[in-house]
């Protein structure tokens, strides 16, 4: 080996060129780094900066305007002693759980149905997707009507003669979150269905054949074989759904306004009403800091597993 070294140093190593020196890590492929500057700037300045800003001001007693009058943990004290906040969190947990499951299940089921080589697939797909295009400002109102006990579904069914039929989710504090869910699923499942459908299309045709030869019923194949294979698709769908759930606001405002009472309040609405209704920014920031905290607690380990654990070739 030493000989080769020598041969190198005496022979062609004299003709050193630009390729000889190891360039610094930072300067290699500079363009790719420059191209990422906007993203990094946005991540750091807006999202990280905005988060830090929010957290800092959550320790002040800012009212209508942000100002640095320190208030210690007072906002958090108050936050956690406010029933509305507790209710909001419970609601979000309930809704989030149900909506996550519901969206995934319905989205997947619809995708699976559409994947059975049916006719008019495009029509059905458009029908399931269109709600995503409409703003909730008014569709919330429509759902309010449909769920209205007097002239909505309940009224109609009673009109058919089933007098004891009762379906008034928006007026019953116990089930109002389910009323929201009906509309939430209506709007959100289409997109998830599309993602799932796409995922299903990527499954090796031979897997289906194998399961048919094995005599496995279709539903069982989905549950035992296909779904486990679609993990990445579910992850993408989950990020989309989860980000929608955390930000849940429009739907509640449009459909129930948080009512009846405070039974359908959600954190994002709590934040909004604290910041702009009560003119108490500090309180709103404290609430949003808590929301961010829980997101971070979920996101960081996930990101670590996703990007940190394994390296891609």
């Amino acid at each position, binding site marked *: 080996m030493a000989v080769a070294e020598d041969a190198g140093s005496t022979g062609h190593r004299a003709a050193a060129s630009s390729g000889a020196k190891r360039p610094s*890590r930072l300067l290699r492929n500079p363009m790719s780094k420059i191209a990422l500057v906007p993203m990094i700037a946005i991540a750091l300045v807006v999202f990280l900066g905005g988060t830090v800003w929010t957290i800092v001001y959550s320790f002040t007693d800012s009212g209508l305007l942000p100002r640095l009058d320190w208030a210690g943990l007072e906002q958090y004290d108050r936050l956690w002693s406010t029933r509305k906040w507790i209710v909001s969190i419970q609601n979000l947990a309930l809704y989030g759980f149900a909506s996550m499951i519901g969206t995934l299940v319905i989205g997947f089921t619809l995708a699976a149905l559409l994947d059975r080589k049916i006719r008019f697939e495009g029509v059905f797909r458009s029908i399931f997707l269109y*709600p995503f295009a409409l703003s909730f400002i008014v569709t919330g109102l429509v759902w309010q009507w*449909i769920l209205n006990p007097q002239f909505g579904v309940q009224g109609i069914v009673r009109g058919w003669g089933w007098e004891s039929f009762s379906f008034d989710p928006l007026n019953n504090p116990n089930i109002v979150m389910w009323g929201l869910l009906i509309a939430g699923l209506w709007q959100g499942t289409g997109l998830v269905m599309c993602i799932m459908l796409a995922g299903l299309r990527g499954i090796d045709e031979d897997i289906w054949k194998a399961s048919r030869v094995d005599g496995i019923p279709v539903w069982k194949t989905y549950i035992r074989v296909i779904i486990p294979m679609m993990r990445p698709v579910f992850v993408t769908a989950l990020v989309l759904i989860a980000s929608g759930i955390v*930000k849940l606001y429009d739907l509640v405002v449009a459909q129930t306004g948080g009512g009846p009472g405070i039974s359908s309040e959600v954190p994002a609405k709590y934040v909004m009403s604290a910041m702009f209704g009560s003119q108490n920014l500090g309180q709103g920031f404290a609430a949003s800091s808590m929301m961010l905290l829980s997101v971070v607690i979920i996101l960081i380990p996930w990101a670590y597993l996703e990007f940190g654990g394994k390296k891609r070739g």
Partner: protein
Amino acid sequence: MANPATLGATGAAMDASRGQMSSDHHRGPRPKKALSRRNIMLYGVLIVVSLYYLLPLYVMIVTSLKGMPEIRMGNVFGPPLEVTFEPWAKAWSQACTGINCDGLSRGFFNSVQILIPSVLMSIAVASVSGYALSMWKFRGSEVFFTILLMGAFIPYQVMIYPVVLLLRNMGLFGSLSGLVLVHTVFGMPILVLLFRNYFASLPVELFKAARVDGAGFWQIFFRIMAPMSLPIFVVAMILQVTGIWNDFLFGVIYTRPDQYPMTVQLNNIVNSVQGVKEYNVNMAATLLTGLVPLTVYFVSGKLFVRGIAAGAVKG
């Protein structure tokens, strides 16, 4: 070629000799496919579910074609006794926003003006970032991406004031470019995720081949990667068109009245606190507002599924 099977091709012969083994001339019974239980179930479920999805649309359309007195009568589901297109006309060109009574038409052009640069800009930045993240990884790039992803979970409302201060410092507050920037920023997390995953699913060899061919960062992007990624660009466009077109909050906060998007008018038509709500006009206005994203969906439906496939399947 003598084909004995043709003898048994008639249905009667087929049924008569069903299950018989002696002759190899007959055909087994061919199950009826079109009306099988499976198909009835399948289409039954799809149609029932479609009804659930279509019900609100039906209510909206029906309501938008009724006059106010009929709406007051309260039958949400009943078809209009007397069809009137006045609500549509009113929503488009007469409904008032404060003292300006020219309906949605006033904001339509503004919306287009906001939409186009915002969609282009956000997709441009996100696609380049996603490309760089998947093909030109360097140490730490995933950390920034994780931070960015966190942005997908922050309620927009929380970010209003920090962004106001930021824009003010940049001297962009109240200008169209400021709004475009805001849309770009808030579109980033999901879009970069989509693009990153999509580009990661393209064959690495192409990238390597292009590098051997001496193509640089931008050449590889524009000449090789972008032309191969039409579907994901369409997906991103659909997401952004929907998001930006329907945005109200940013449009109203980061611009001035003469640039307010259509959704401000929609909000004004729909959200008047006092006075009578003209539900028929509301519905017409909503449908009108939704037309642009809906058009985009229908036009690009096929590509949508294909693009998401590529973007989402490889996590």
